[in-house]
């Protein structure tokens, strides 16, 4: 059974359709890449899955439960974390406060402390800056904070929206290394990326989104060598 199953999902912005009935599945332990051009509907897809945007039709199931109408704060509790586009850290709060908000749904203090240690060991830079206001971090550090904050909820699946956007190549590599590590430790990953080459290189399977519809589904390796994909998304 798929961990996350989206069936015929439709979303409209006013009268303009943003998603025209897309279906996809994410199985436990997979890294799934959702690639496509600007405006194809990638961010809309993630926002609808976590309940930030209402759907106009279709069904979203997570761990066998229908979450189509569930508000975001309850979906988080079920084990889904979402690292939004543009990091969206809380700028006027410290790194530590941001991380603790990530663990908002958890009650056990010892478990929270363990997660905090894990996040600090994965992102040593955050540990150096625990008392610094998040708004004063660099873009790459903010991305690490957003990822660390999401991991603090100890999610079963993590949705990442453009984690490499606006980062220097060194940070991009570091971020993708961390995504691979998170995945290898058992967290399922749904990754939205414009950097298709990077995304496909770490993904198991991928879906290609074009103006609100899924046009291609395949194994990530195969797509990396597919002529049409190479032309359209890998700049060759």
């Amino acid at each position: 059974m798929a961990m996350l199953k989206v069936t015929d999902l439709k979303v409209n912005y006013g009268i303009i359709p943003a998603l025209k009935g897309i279906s996809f599945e994410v199985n436990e332990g997979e890294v799934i890449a959702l690639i496509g051009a600007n405006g194809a509907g990638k961010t809309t897809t993630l926002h609808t899955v976590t309940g930030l945007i209402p759907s106009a039709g279709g069904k979203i199931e997570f761990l066998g439960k229908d979450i189509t109408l569930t508000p975001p704060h309850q979906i988080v509790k079920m084990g889904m974390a979402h690292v939004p586009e543009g990091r969206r850290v809380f700028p006027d709060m410290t790194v530590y406060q941001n991380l603790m908000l990530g663990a908002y749904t958890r009650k056990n203090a010892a478990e929270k402390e363990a997660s905090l240690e894990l996040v600090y060991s994965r992102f040593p830079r955050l540990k150096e800056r625990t008392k610094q206001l998040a708004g004063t971090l660099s873009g790459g550090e903010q991305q690490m904070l957003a990822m660390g904050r999401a991991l603090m909820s100890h999610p079963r699946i993590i949705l990442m929206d453009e984690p490499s956007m606006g980062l220097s190549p060194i940070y991009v590599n570091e971020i993708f290394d961390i995504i691979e590590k998170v995945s290898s430790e058992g967290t399922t990953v749904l990754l939205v990326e414009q950097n298709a080459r990077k995304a496909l290189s770490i993904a198991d399977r991928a879906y290609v989104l074009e103006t609100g519809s899924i046009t291609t589904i395949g194994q990530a390796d195969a797509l990396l060598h597919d002529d049409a994909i190479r032309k359209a998304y890998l700049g060759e």
Partner: protein
Amino acid sequence: MVSFFTNLINGLSLGSIYAIIAIGYTMVYGIAKMLNFAHGDIIMVGAFIAYTVISTFKLPVWLGIVAAVIVCTCLGVAIEKIAYKPLRKASSPLAVLITAIGVSYFLQNSALLIFGSDPKMFSSVVPFGNLTIGPLQIPGTTIVSIVVSLVLVGALQLFINKTKPGQAMLACAQDRDAASLMGISVNGTITLTFAIGSAMAAIAGVLLCSAYPTLSPTTGAMPGIKAFVAAVFGGIGSIPGAMIGGLLLGIIEILSRSYISSQLSDAIVFSVLILVLLVRPTGIMGKVIQEKV
């Protein structure tokens, strides 16, 4: 010199009442992103409840204060649920602003219907009279107002910085969508904000009417507007800003009433606001919002 210090302390006292009201205004603005123009009338409701319990039913003072706080908290939450929440996703922010003005009139006219238009004499809830410190004679109410507001602000700061619901409030004020992705119920947090703001307004109402004992259905209107000015003055959305704005406003009002003209004191208060906003459009503690390119 003695009279100057007396005026200054009276100003601090009135200012600390404005500060309590302004903090409610500024919290609701910061988290629900709306101006709750009915906030001032909650003060009036609180004072009427305390008056009814203490003077009409002859029950103990503490019971009157507790009743005022409970009724105002419930009223604030109910207003938010019934009048504001359905409009939260409305396309124009004006819809909720106009509704707030409507709620303000609704509360005033309900009070008019229940309690009548003739002013009531509110007997002070402070059980002791003037305090003599050196050459200064300070009314008990003045000292209680200052102490209560300091305690409330301190408790609120602790609540916001040290508790989970407090952190949730800060998170919602900065980024609602991101807060909901942390598992925070944004609706629940907004309700909590209205509850805290209204409870503080009830206390402000009791303090205000202890210092200025005429109570009528429009009692909350002017202090409400002044507190709004104080919140803008200090930088709307900022709790320390509302505190400083409230204190400054009270001091300016009392000093101009004593040394310039009692008729012009309100005009002077609003002129100072205009001057401050000309120099610092975001208020004293307000953040300069940078335009994104």
